[in-house]
């Protein structure tokens, strides 16, 4: 019976997907072509970066931009700092955000709406306006030129929206899940950890990607709070490439081709859970 349903379903969906697939192919091309352009331009020599008509494949193929980025500009240090700051901030956001998202999404608290509203207000406030006062705060704490100067504000400014994301996905999980935990005599934390969270992995993934990317690409705070190269992150490091009148496109593209690797790693780590998220529905049904 279920096999029949599955077959019919696939049939019904296939027509639907076919209508969509052409458009999707175009969209995929639209997303991939600029990436292709970034990648091949990072292998062009400086003079060929500005050649007209443009080279659709680099000739000669040069790795000078990569050498330049890592050896001359010390990109490795920036990369390390970005990884440290981003990973710690993302972990903090996920832990605090999951707890809060669970409370706000699934537990009967009074004043939830106000809390969510205040969180939204915090996430709408433009970064340019908070940098100067935050600088004063960091200076008084003696945190300038340190990892926590970035980890703490990144966590705080990304938490509000991460809570919104996590709450939204946690809301969608059937209520009986907690019952299962309660009947087994598990503590609330244990229920959250071993019963609710596995159901919410796709949401967790979304929040993780959101936070990771926001920290990974943040510029203004990173520039202002840390002026020692030992604590500077990738976006700041790249802003030091070249000179006021020279934009070394090739080197910048080489650095950013390397800089997107971690997001690939992140997706790889979460791949199983996100893919299995689909099948978990079938299991519970």
């Amino acid at each position, binding site marked *: 019976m279920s096999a029949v349903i599955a077959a019919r379903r696939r049939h019904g969906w296939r027509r639907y997907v076919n209508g969509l697939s052409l458009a999707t192919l175009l969209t995929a091309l639209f997303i991939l072509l600029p990436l292709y352009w970034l990648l091949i331009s990072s292998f062009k020599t400086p003079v060929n970066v500005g050649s007209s008509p*443009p080279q659709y494949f680099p000739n000669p193929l040069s790795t000078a931009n990569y050498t330049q980025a890592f050896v001359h500009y010390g990109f490795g240090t920036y990369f390390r700092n970005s990884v440290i700051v981003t990973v710690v901030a993302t972990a903090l956001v996920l832990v605090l955000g999951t707890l809060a998202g669970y409370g706000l999404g699934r537990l009967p*608290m009074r004043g939830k709406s106000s809390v969510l509203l205040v969180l939204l207000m915090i996430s709408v406030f433009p970064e340019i306006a908070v940098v100067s006062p935050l600088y004063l705060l960091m200076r008084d704490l003696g945190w300038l030129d340190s990892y926590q100067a970035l980890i703490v504000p990144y966590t705080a400014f990304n*938490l509000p929206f991460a809570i919104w994301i996590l709450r939204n996905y946690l809301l969608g999980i059937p209520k009986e899940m907690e019952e299962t935990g309660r009947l087994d005599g598990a503590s609330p934390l244990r229920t959250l950890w071993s019963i609710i969270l596995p159901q919410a992995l796709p949401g967790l993934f979304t929040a993780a990607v959101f936070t990771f990317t926001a920290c990974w690409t943040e510029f203004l705070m990173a520039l202002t709070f840390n002026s020692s190269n030992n604590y500077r992150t990738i976006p700041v490091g790249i802003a030091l490439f070249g000179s006021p009148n020279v934009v070394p496109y090739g080197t910048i593209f080489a650095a950013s081709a390397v800089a997107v690797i971690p997001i690939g790693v992140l997706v790889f780590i979460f791949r199983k859970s996100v893919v299995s998220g689909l099948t978990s529905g079938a299991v519970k049904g």
Partner: protein
Amino acid sequence: MSASVTLERPPGAPAAIVGRPDAHRRGLARLGWGFTLPALIFVGLVTIFPIVFSIVMSLSNVGLSASGFALNGFTLHNYDELIHAGVWRYALGFTVGYTVITVMVELILGTAIALVLQRLTRGRGLMMALLLLPWSMITVISAELWGYIYEGTYGVLQAISGAIGLGRPVFLGTANGAIVSMMVADIWKTTPFVAIIVLAGLVMLPEDVYEAAEVDGASGWSTFWRITFPLLRPTLALAVLFRILQAFGLFDLPFVLTGGGPGTATTSLAVLGYKVMFEDLEFGPGAAVATSTALLVLIGCMAFLRVFRAQAGSEEAA
């Protein structure tokens, strides 16, 4: 006002535990606060001071000197100046228009991509990794990349357009060209993340509703409109909310691609705020730009949620 913040609840989650003893309920509520407070305290400690500081600054005569900001008394002058400044009014209109258009396009494209990704059984991880590359790219760099693509003498897009007989337009050279070019770059970068938000929502939908639809013999489109779409509403709302927040903060693209030009055609509120604060060193008016922007976005988000909720209600009734 706060009522509209609550997104409607998907059918999977009952509103509250009905008919339980009060003590248990209170216990759960206490637990809820216990779970929520660590995050709130963390956020509060770091964000409230700078935000309140800027709001206060926007309402003060701000003097800047080596010894920091001097707040010399209350004034509404900063806001008054904004309202009478043509640049601010233009930036506001531009930012709103830009937000509305890009958010709509990204939502439609992102949902389409998510629906297809959901159907992918093999290679979904790879596809998602690829999709997320634009999103994870440092914004200034993706702006540089598009600047390089759009460049008016050696840019690849111009070369392609010339080769297929469409002439050699200077994409960033006219107001409309620059605005559309910027939107394309924005859509390129952000649509994938909208797709991920929607995909996560899709993946978490209960399977059995589809099966019911299949038994009914519903077609793909009608399954989508009748079943998937309503269930997906909270997630779509989240995606839109997120995009409104981001699009309203539009900064890197105009900052790198056009410097806000041609003329002032692509000067967004964030670019204006940055110029007023960090170039003109007018921190009072700059804080007013920032605060009024935040206020407008907030109003925009709430209006959206309210309309969205009202519409959901009327559909359910019908």
